[in-house]
């Protein structure tokens, strides 16, 4: 709690995003805007079937088209070039296709138009196979196999967990509820579509400009790709240009990147691959759809006794990171509210549908939808007020949850109280109006998914008091540039504008595991702070000699270095830096710091403190349901979050508002419509995002719990905004009109059908 009373100069200030002016002037260069000399344009041909054998591909006509430089099929892909975390997915398929988005060929040509025309000239002969589209059906023994060599459609994953004794706890429970919930495919809808530009230099080293949230891990993937191509001991430089949104969609490397590399190598020219919007809908990954069975119980006083959850996840045709979302789902399942006995099994099942990836919240929104809907049902059954019920079971600092999560700072109770204060839960004045509440827990201090959860930072000061900081962290619009600048400026007594944040170039920036798990403020922030502290120490040591004062008495503030209690002994920091530089035995003030949090990988028993700290929140919604049309209007929304400390409230609100609206889409309107594996609504007319017309009034109270390990007390806030949104809305609809919708999205059709059933 050391920071609580501290006055901050830069931390806590609403400093506009550092690159916002460039973007406002239209000067920021996105992948779409990159043009290199001799650049070719790549395009991908996708499968015509959800499941089929490729009998024959004839590319001769495409190759003969003037302007075409290369045509590749699965036969041209090196055997060991595979994608996905289990490395089972070649960037162009041969033999069998397992979903509509499977790549069957690719071309590079001198213009996008010629490349498109060449795709039309590729003749593919398929033998269509029976597809399987229902994951529960795919688990049955007589189901067609998506991948013949695997013998089963069920992935070998370890999600079979039992903490405590659920059977005993159930017997001893006074009240038990049980139900089934489903969530469907939704997609990121980044406004800038996916893309990459790959080029090889004369020594066959690769540079790739790509939309990625994981420059360092992408570099590793591409190095492996080069190795598979027979290019050993080469260098890979990953540069992320400005990107038009991430939201988890760029947490893996994808076929289009690998194909750009293959084409660039085949042609020895730069190759640009940029998706159009239809392709973005059809060939990028979704949020993992789930079928959730949940049973929870409580004693007479409302204390939770157990939680038992079973899930079936539609894995689609291939395995990407979506298959690991149960590891994050486990967090709310084991640790949202205090509950000692927990059981969780999850099965990921191959189907011939599209496959899933990380998306903001990474499984947490799905799990929390079921948990918080069910909590409302349990509170009602126990005859306890729904808000009171949540307070009875609230998490608290000092708690260790069954999964082994160590709760250090916890503002859940304050968040619930804050929502109660801002929203009138008793208001039943109008017909069809109702209120709902739902809470969240999320990782707030990194997440140890890999061997390292670290981030590096290199800080150098010039002769004039300006700082360049090279961070491993990645800004994708969320504001890591500001967070880094404000933390460094605070520590060194400078202004945010004095700090130049360089990120997302693997030739220049240190390693980082990526912009995921709401970890950047905490982990990259601590890396930057660590580097700043080292430089500060050097400044203090130098000034100590200059002023003949102990180093501890040297302060840095307002771009000045001065002696505590003796402010006339001072020097502008630029002057001091020049003195340090241009003295005999001169010294440039630089430092590096690698911060790897002391969190744990979950071992074989699936226990461990995966994050240094956890973020909490509570959301409240007031809705009006039109019983004639089934339409839901969100009248008021309150999203209270425990963020440790708000480094920049302006950007923090942006994360919360954006998260909430994404969550409202998840709750009410968004759905990738899939018919026998084919996506039917690959455009913004039919995929219903919230527009400016649908915008909702949102209040975003901030609870500061000053986390002991966070940089200046901060915890992560990137994802929480969209985690409890769907259950808050579902609970409000139930409160309004007495129907509980258990399948997302909650469309007017579903509400009308439920009302009809209820009213007879």
């Amino acid at each position, binding site marked *: 709690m050391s920071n609580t009373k501290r006055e901050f100069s830069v931390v806590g200030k609403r400093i506009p995003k550092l690159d916002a002016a460039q973007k406002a002037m239209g000067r920021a260069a996105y992948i779409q805007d990159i043009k290199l000399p001799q650049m070719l344009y790549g395009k991908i041909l996708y499968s015509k079937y959800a499941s089929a054998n490729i009998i024959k591909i004839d590319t001769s006509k495409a190759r003969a088209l003037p302007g075409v430089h290369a045509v590749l099929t699965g036969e041209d892909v090196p055997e060991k070039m595979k994608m996905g975390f289990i490395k089972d997915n070649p960037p162009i398929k041969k033999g069998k296709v397992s979903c509509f988005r499977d790549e069957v060929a690719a071309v590079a040509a001198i213009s996008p138009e010629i490349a498109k025309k060449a795709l039309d000239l590729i003749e593919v002969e398929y033998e269509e196979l029976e597809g399987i589209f229902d994951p529960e059906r795919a688990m049955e023994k007589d189901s067609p196999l998506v991948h013949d060599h695997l013998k089963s459609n069920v992935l070998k994953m370890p999600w079979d967990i039992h903490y405590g004794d659920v059977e005993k706890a159930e017997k001893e429970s006074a009240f038990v509820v049980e139900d089934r919930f489903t969530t469907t495919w939704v997609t990121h809808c980044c406004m800038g579509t996916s893309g990459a530009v790959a080029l090889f230099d004369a020594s066959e080293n690769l540079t790739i400009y790509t939309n990625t949230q994981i420059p360092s891990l992408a570099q590793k993937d591409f190095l492996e790709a080069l190795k598979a191509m027979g290019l050993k001991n080469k260098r890979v430089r990953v540069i992320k240009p*400005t990107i038009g949104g991430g939201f988890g969609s760029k947490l893996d490397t994808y076929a289009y990147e690998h194909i750009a590399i293959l084409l660039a190598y085949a042609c020895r020219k730069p190759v640009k691959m940029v998706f159009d919007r239809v392709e973005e809908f059809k060939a990028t990954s979704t949020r993992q759809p789930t079928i959730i069975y949940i049973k929870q119980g409580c004693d007479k006083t409302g204390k939770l006794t157990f939680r038992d959850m079973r899930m079936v996840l539609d894995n689609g045709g291939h395995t990407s990171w979506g298959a690991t979302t149960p590891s994050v789902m486990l967090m709310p399942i084991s640790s949202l509210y205090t509950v000692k006995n927990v059981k969780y099994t999850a099965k990921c099942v191959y189907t011939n549908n599209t496959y899933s990836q990380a998306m903001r919240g990474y499984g947490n929104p799905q799990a929390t939808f079921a948990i918080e809907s069910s909590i409302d049902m349990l509170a009602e059954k126990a005859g306890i007020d729904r808000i009171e019920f949540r307070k009875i079971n609230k998490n608290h600092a000092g708690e260790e949850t069954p999964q082994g999560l160590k709760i250090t700072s916890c503002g859940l109770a304050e968040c619930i109280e804050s929502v109660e204060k801002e929203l009138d839960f008793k208001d039943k004045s109008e017909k069809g109006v109702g209120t709902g509440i739902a809470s969240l827990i999320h990782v707030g201090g990194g997440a140890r998914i890999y061997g390292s959860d670290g981030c590096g930072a290199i800080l150098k000061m010039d002769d004039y008091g300006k700082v360049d900081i090279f961070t491993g962290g990645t800004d994708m*619009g969320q504001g890591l540039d500001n967070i880094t600048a404000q933390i460094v400026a605070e520590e060194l007594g400078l202004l945010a504008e004095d700090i130049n944040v360089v990120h997302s170039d693997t030739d220049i920036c240190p390693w980082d595991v990526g912009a995921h798990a709401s970890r950047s403020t905490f982990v990259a922030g601590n890396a930057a702070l660590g580097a700043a502290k080292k430089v500060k120490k050097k400044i203090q040591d130098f000034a100590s000699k200059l002023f003949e004062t102990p180093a501890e008495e040297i302060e840095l503030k307002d771009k000045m270095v001065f002696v505590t209690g003796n402010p006339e002994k001072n020097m502008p920091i630029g002057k001091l830096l020049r003195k340090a530089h241009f003295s005999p035995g001169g010294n440039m003030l630089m430092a590096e710091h690698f911060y790897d949090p002391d969190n744990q990988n979950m071992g074989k028993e699936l226990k461990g403190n995966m994050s240094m700290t956890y973020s909490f929140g509570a959301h409240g919604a007031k809705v009006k349901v039109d019983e004639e049309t089934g339409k839901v209007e969100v009248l008021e929304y309150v999203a209270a979050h425990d963020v440790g400390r708000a480094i920049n409230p302006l950007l923090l609100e*942006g994360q919360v508002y954006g998260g909430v609206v994404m969550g409202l889409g998840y709750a009410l309107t968004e759905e990738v419509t899939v018919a026998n594996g084919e996506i039917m609504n690959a455009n913004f007319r039919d995929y219903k995002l919230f527009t400016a017309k649908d915008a909702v009034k949102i209040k975003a109270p901030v609870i500061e719990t000053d986390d002991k390990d966070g940089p200046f007390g901060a915890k992560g806030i990137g994802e929480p905004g969209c985690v409890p949104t769907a259950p808050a809305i579902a609970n409000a609809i139930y409160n309004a009109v007495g129907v509980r919708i258990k399948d997302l999205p909650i469309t007017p059709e579903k509400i009308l059908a439920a009302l009809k059933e209820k009213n007879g």
Partner: protein
Amino acid sequence: MYEHNTSEQLGETLPMTTTISFSLNGDKISYEIKDHWTLLHLLREEMGLIGTKEGCGNGECGACTVIVDKLAVNSCLYLAIEADGTTIETIEGLASTDGTLHPLQQSFVDNGGIQCGFCSPGMIMSSKALLDENPDANREEIQHALAGNICRCTGYIPIFESVEAAKKMGGQNE
């Protein structure tokens, strides 16, 4: 240099070309275009004005919004040939020659109206068309004017606040 040969190499009839004249951000422009080009293609791919973005190519997202004769249009649906004789404003023309941002640009910066920034040029152009026409636009009118501009980052609230703040700053600086 390649693009000009495209149609010929495709073995198709060479498209018609037309020379059009228009005003672009205050400059008088004369440009030989192919008749099938969209205004977006002309601006971005031919003239290198990358500030105008393509988000969908189908008139659904508003990222490509520019102002033609005071009206906000989706330049991905607007044929370049129709621009003959018009006055066009793009995001590149908003800031003053001394570098001062237009009040809308400044207020989007100051109020958190920009995160990833991909929708921002289109958002700002739609907002400008609105305020030029209706300097006192209320929240509902702002929402209506921006209904065709999708933003996935901000939840729209900071964007509305940006437009309202720009109103107070006096709308135009021209």
